[in-house]
């Protein structure tokens, strides 16, 4: 069973002659345990694809299915519940909350999902540990470097049991060694059964994926074939 499936998905912004088609007729099915990388020039529709897959945006036509549920059939409340519980996001502009410390930012998704504060903190410290930032847990976003903020955002996407992780340029501000560590972290999550969709400009990071999908002008231009052993 695919964890996420996009069937003939098109996303158009605006109407008439000024309409911009960000994504056009895209078909993509991602299996449990699969790490898929999306590459393509700026404006080719990568963020749009990620937002649609995570239910943050709705297609103009076509269907997005997450774990056998057509997202279009859900009420706003049900959709919000799926997003909170199962999906982790790393946004291109990290969206950390400046008035919360690193650990509080990471706790947030768990608390929103109803975890008690102590439990949420415990899970958040675990996630911060995974990205090597446990020692900076009580600093505020403006008191840490850009690369460290990026790792806090990744910890927030990974905290708790996320079955689907969507990451938009998660390695943007990282040196190549730290970037490799982030990818190996995402890789480990996949090997443990999670599904990860990652947007990157860097071939070296995309190469960690089972499958690399190339977008151009809103369409899938090509994709590498996943190795047989890793297809589940």
């Amino acid at each position: 069973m695919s964890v996420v499936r996009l069937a003939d998905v098109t996303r158009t912004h605006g109407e008439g002659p000024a309409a911009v088609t960000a994504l056009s007729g895209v078909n993509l099915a991602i299996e449990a345990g699969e790490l898929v990388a999306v590459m393509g020039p700026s404006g080719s529709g990568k963020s749009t694809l990620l937002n649609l897959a995570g239910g943050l945006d709705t297609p103009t036509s076509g269907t997005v299915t997450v774990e056998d549920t057509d997202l279009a059939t859900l009420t706003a409340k049900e959709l919000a519940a799926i997003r909170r519980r199962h999906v982790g996001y790393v946004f291109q502009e990290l969206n950390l909350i400046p008035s919360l410390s690193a650990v509080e930012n990471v706790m947030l998704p768990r608390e929103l999902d109803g975890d008690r504060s102590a439990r949420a903190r415990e899970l958040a410290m675990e996630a911060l540990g995974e990205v090597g930032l446990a020692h900076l847990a009580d600093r505020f976003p403006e008191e840490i470097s850009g690369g460290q903020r990026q790792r806090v955002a990744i910890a927030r996407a990974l905290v708790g049991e996320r079955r689907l992780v969507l990451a938009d340029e998660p390695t943007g501000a990282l040196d190549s060694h730290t970037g490799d560590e982030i990818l190996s972290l995402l890789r480990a999550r996949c090997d443990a059964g999670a599904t990860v969709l990652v947007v990157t400009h860097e071939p070296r990071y995309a190469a960690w994926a089972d499958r690399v999908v190339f977008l151009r002008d809103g369409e899938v231009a090509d994709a590498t074939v996943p190795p047989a052993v890793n297809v589940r």
Partner: protein
Amino acid sequence: MSIRHGLLALLSPEPRYGYQLRTEFEASTGATWPLNIGQVYTTLSRMERDGLVSPGEEDDQGRVVYMITEAGRAEMERWFSTPVAQADRPRDELVIKLAMAVTAPGVDVGRVVQTQRTATMATLQELTRAKRSAAGGTAQRLVLDSKIFQAEAEQRWLDHCEAVLAANTEGAQS
């Protein structure tokens, strides 16, 4: 083997003399691959033997014009649509191929770039898997790293080619 493929690409728009081919080959590929006229004629006579080109009449100065055959056109198309394998790559064949794809009329250069990009990415994925599971020592790891950097550089260069080509097309349209 890309001298003969390069010559086919140069012959595809119209027939050429051997000496013209040599000048145009170097003009397309820069100094990457200097050819001497002897290599051009040897290659042309082998291509004639293989049915890829056919010679015209000798003119009064004893020069012969060559034209591409149907088989030659098919062979050129096959070359452009096949990615260069990382393993048995004669140095710079990809560079020659791209230069020729831009020079010859009617080649879908974007397609050539994308075909190569996917093949190179598959190589990069394989190397990354090998690195992840490498039990060997530092030497083995560094050899893998070297190959990863090479494949990565090639990928970046392909991105760059695509961006330059897109900018040129946009410029031509406006």
